[in-house]
């Protein structure tokens, strides 16, 4: 039980068992309202009269000026005036109502975004950004994080926080055996700004980790930019190498499981040998499985001749010796290493200049090779 859950339950028990029920404040509020409505003395009466007369005169002039104006424009302008107030409650009210107006307030907010008052301008820009964010968010995200757009419009950094919370939420549900409230499509919305918003090296590694784990393709243009940073690439290289080795191990394990159940290994050759695992009936792997592509290439995006697919066997793998290579990753993003898996499921990262790699390539077919 979380602290928040316990706090709520304590309050509920306090009411149900302890009998501490909400008070009825109706009469007190109404009495206070009527006191505020009634002028207290002759000076107040005069002040109200004069102000009312002035307001009447002013509203008459204003009526002539604004009678052709869209009511939403007038309302939005008035609410933007609230943002200038010294009273926090007036500003909060202004922000709250402008949010409720949605796109109807957009034109006035755009004008206010260049307001001389920097606070008004900043608030207007945030509200404009919020409008775009609200359109992007999926219903599931809106349900899982009520009013999350208020956080997301502040800066890109907050996107990483929300992405982290989303991933935690998914993992927690999975650990409890429940259906996760969010899916990959929801994370896709958050991924690109989250990568953009990662500032420190640790944050960048974290963001890249999520993109890899959930195969968030929307973020690959951003991760490709990140990988050009040599220092970051250096710190990521061991993680990417290990992930790539795990991918080959998983793929070979699935191929062996398939052989056990169907009596034979896939008949395809080269990269198609691995891709065949996504074309069985039913498919052993989803077609966009994270295992089917080198993680480093996934993050950097494909270039000509480099799709990130793995090398596969050139001949009938059933006839291979246990020490023969059955899969290989030769992507230059792994630096001087090539990653190799043998029929006996031994997996290793070797210098790509080693004779062992040349021997392995003799038994394998490169992706795209005819």
């Amino acid at each position, binding site marked *: 039980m979380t602290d*928040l*859950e316990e706090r709520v339950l304590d309050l509920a*028990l306090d009411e149900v068992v302890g009998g501490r029920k909400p008070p009825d404040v109706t009469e007190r509020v109404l009495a206070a309202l009527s006191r505020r409505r009634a002028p207290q003395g002759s000076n107040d009466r005069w002040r109200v009269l004069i102000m009312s007369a002035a307001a009447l005169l002013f509203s008459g002039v204003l009526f002539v000026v604004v009678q052709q104006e869209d009511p939403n424009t007038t309302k939005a302008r008035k609410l933007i005036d609230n943002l200038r107030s010294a009273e926090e409650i007036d500003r909060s009210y202004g922000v709250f109502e402008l949010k409720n107006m949605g796109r109807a307030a957009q034109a006035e907010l755009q004008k206010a975004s260049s307001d001389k008052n920097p606070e008004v301008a900043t608030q207007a820009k945030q509200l404009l950004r919020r409008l775009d964010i609200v359109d992007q968010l999926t219903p599931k995200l809106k349900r899982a994080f009520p009013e999350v757009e208020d956080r997301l419009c502040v800066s890109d950094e907050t996107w990483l926080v929300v992405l982290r919370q989303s991933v935690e939420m998914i993992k927690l549900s999975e650990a409890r055996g429940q259906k996760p409230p969010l899916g990959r499509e929801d994370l896709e919305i958050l991924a690109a700004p989250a990568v953009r918003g990662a500032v420190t090296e640790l944050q960048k590694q974290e963001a890249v980790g999520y993109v890899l784990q959930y195969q968030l393709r929307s973020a690959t243009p951003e991760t490709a930019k990140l990988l050009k940073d040599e220092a970051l690439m250096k710190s990521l290289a061991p993680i990417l190498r290990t992930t790539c080795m795990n991918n080959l191990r998983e793929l070979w394990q699935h191929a062996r499981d398939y052989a056990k159940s169907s009596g034979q290994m896939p008949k395809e050759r080269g990269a198609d040998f691995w891709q065949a695992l996504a074309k069985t009936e039913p498919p052993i792997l989803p077609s966009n499985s994270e295992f089917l592509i080198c993680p480093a290439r996934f993050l950097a995006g494909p270039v000509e001749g480099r799709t990130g697919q793995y090398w596969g066997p050139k001949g009938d793998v059933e006839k291979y010796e246990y020490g023969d290579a059955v899969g290989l990753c030769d992507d230059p993003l792994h630096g001087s290493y090539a990653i190799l898996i043998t029929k006996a499921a031994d997996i290793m990262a070797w210098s790509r200049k080693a004779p062992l790699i040349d021997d392995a390539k003799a038994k394998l077919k490169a992706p795209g090779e005819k």
Partner: protein
Amino acid sequence: MLAERLTAPMDARPFIQVHQAEIWRYLRFLGCDATQAEDFTQETFLIALTGAESPRTSAYLRTVARNLFYKSRRHPLASLEDVEEDERAWADFSRDDGGASQLEALRGCVESLEGRAKQAILLRFESRLSHAKMANSLDLGEEGVKTLLRRVKERLRDCVQRKLET
């Protein structure tokens, strides 16, 4: 603006009656004691009813109440994350009825408790005993009382969830 602020809506009474319990509970949830929650509930409605074009939604009332509460604290600023986490927990509790269905379900669950579990809940929330005094009454150590309470609360939480799902 002043003229508008002095105009109370005609339907103030039902408006207050519909929302007051939820706002009071929400303030208690944020950390107010019962008296402070009562004062802030009153102030929340005064602000909402004298504000220009009050939107009269419970979300707006909660925003006003929250602002009042944070302003009253020595360190008024709460992080957006905290606010959002609170809002999520509150939304789970209040659903669309200000928490009435949860309270009703909890009432049934408390009634179904028996033996030491029920005794612990009554001592804690009805008699408002401290853990030390409860330990004497239940013939347990203080840690034992805390563990017992935690387990009973978990049972109650699960029971409420089951009732609400059905």
